[in-house]
């Protein structure tokens, strides 16, 4: 039962253009969402998060949008840079006190073409 889905295994985007990565979830108990970025042979690193009380969160070139009714979130990167080439994981969690368990998607490999 895949509760967090990233349906695009890969995405290629021209440098300077916008990259849009998508994520869908099925569990309505999820109330916070995160994006992680992973380079080869390294662990995932936190990129940006959003709580279910918001529908948008922005941090520099990165913006996450949340559509609760559609159970969908997306990560926008603009402008895309070569260093953004990595695997991006969407993760979701519930705010049970003391339990920060996250469920991860399968990842999307983003390639920025110079």
């Amino acid at each position, binding site marked *: 039962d895949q509760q*967090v889905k*990233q349906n695009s295994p890969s995405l290629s985007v021209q440098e300077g253009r916008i990259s849009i990565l998508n994520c869908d979830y099925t569990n309505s108990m999820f109330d*916070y969402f*995160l994006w*992680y970025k992973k380079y080869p*042979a*390294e*662990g*995932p*690193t*936190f990129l940006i*998060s959003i*709580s279910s009380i918001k529908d948008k969160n922005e941090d520099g070139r990165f913006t996450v949008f949340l559509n609760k009714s559609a159970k969908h979130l997306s990560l926008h990167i603009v402008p895309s840079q070569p260093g953004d080439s990595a695997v991006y*994981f969407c*993760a979701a*969690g519930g*705010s049970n006190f*003391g*339990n*920060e*368990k*996250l*469920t*991860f*998607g*399968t*990842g999307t490999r983003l390639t920025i073409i110079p």
Partner: protein
Amino acid sequence: EAGVAQSPRYKIIEKRQSVAFWCNPISGHATLYWYQQILGQGPKLLIQFQNNGVVDDSQLPKDRFSAERLKGVDSTLKIQPAKLEDSAVYLCASSPFGGNSPLHFGNGTRLTVT
């Protein structure tokens, strides 16, 4: 701030052998996690510790996997005996206690079972 340290980086063993992984979390982080990432999939939580107590081990195959976190700091994850399907990257992560704080991951241990 020093990151999450894991060792070894790589391990190759034969099936039915045993193996152990070590993790040192970020200083002061009360919560420690072990994740398993199989090739092409997202990280899956195996076990979560709060200080030296287990919070969630519902997805840990307890017939062969064990984990401990002595004195609420370092942690070890052991597999005995290993199976071919245990081939994966084992990621350790830590976070401060409470709230929806992002996880900080180590670089992982890549295990190959032959």
